[in-house]
């Protein structure tokens, strides 16, 4: 089993290995992140607040996963994602740049997404979407963040982006 992450810049193989990841995917090179569904050769991740856009994205075969912008949960989208086998990505990088109070609010919202996904059977993955080296997290730190978010969700531990 290996852990993966997604960053907005190219991370060297050496640093990637040191951090404990099998691979850190680069946005623009390995996959595309967009606000709407578009035709691309690379896997697409759609970030949006609008449930209609996200439901449309989930139905598309080239979409690998979705991100709820500002962690605003739409249960219909999670239900559809579970049905279509798409991943709901949670952007951990958002937790890093904020105040303690704001972080608490964001953790609460992320937990709501996790609980809804758990209930409906959708897959959840944590990604950093780091835009620079200092915003990256090691696999160990990512696992601790997943414990912070997932620990009290029954029957679920860890939500890191992994393959088996």
């Amino acid at each position, binding site marked *: 089993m290996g852990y993966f992450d997604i960053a907005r810049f190219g991370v060297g193989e050496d640093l990637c290995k*040191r*951090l*404990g990841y099998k691979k850190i995917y680069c946005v623009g090179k390995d996959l595309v992140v967009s606000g709407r569904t578009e035709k691309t050769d690379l896997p697409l991740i759609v970030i949006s607040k609008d449930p209609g856009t996200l439901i449309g994205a989930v139905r598309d075969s080239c979409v690998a996963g979705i991100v709820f912008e500002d962690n605003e949960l739409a249960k219909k989208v999670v239900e559809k994602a579970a049905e279509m086998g798409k991943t709901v990505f949670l952007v951990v990088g958002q*937790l*890093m*740049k904020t105040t303690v109070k704001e*972080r608490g609010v964001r953790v609460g919202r992320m937990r709501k997404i996790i609980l809804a996904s758990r209930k409906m059977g959708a897959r959840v993955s944590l990604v950093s979407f780091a835009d*620079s*080296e*200092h*915003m*990256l*997290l*090691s696999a*160990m*730190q990512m696992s*601790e*963040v997943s*414990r*912070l978010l997932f620990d009290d969700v029954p029957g679920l531990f860890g939500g890191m982006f992994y393959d088996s």
Partner: protein
Amino acid sequence: MIARPKNRYVLVEATAPLDVGDKVVSNKIISLLCAEIGAIGYVRGHPKVVCRAGERAFIVRVNRGYEGGIALAFSFIKDLDGSPVGFFTLRTSGSLKKLVELSRKAGL
């Protein structure tokens, strides 16, 4: 009988060179950690920068069971004296020697 405290050592890599041998820098790191884990977490975990393990790496000693909390706290520290910096916790171990060797091998 009072049990001897058992320590764990955490190898931390910074994104920028740091001189943790300087007391001011190491105290700054500990105070930033303390701000994240809180006073009670600090007393329980009792983190301390024990040595430098390279130009950008250092080792933190912490009470056993609190290494996860320290790793989480380091992930929230993104600023040191106004300049952006990131900390990666790479490995934890029960012995200091092992981490120093690991850091040397990784060329940190």
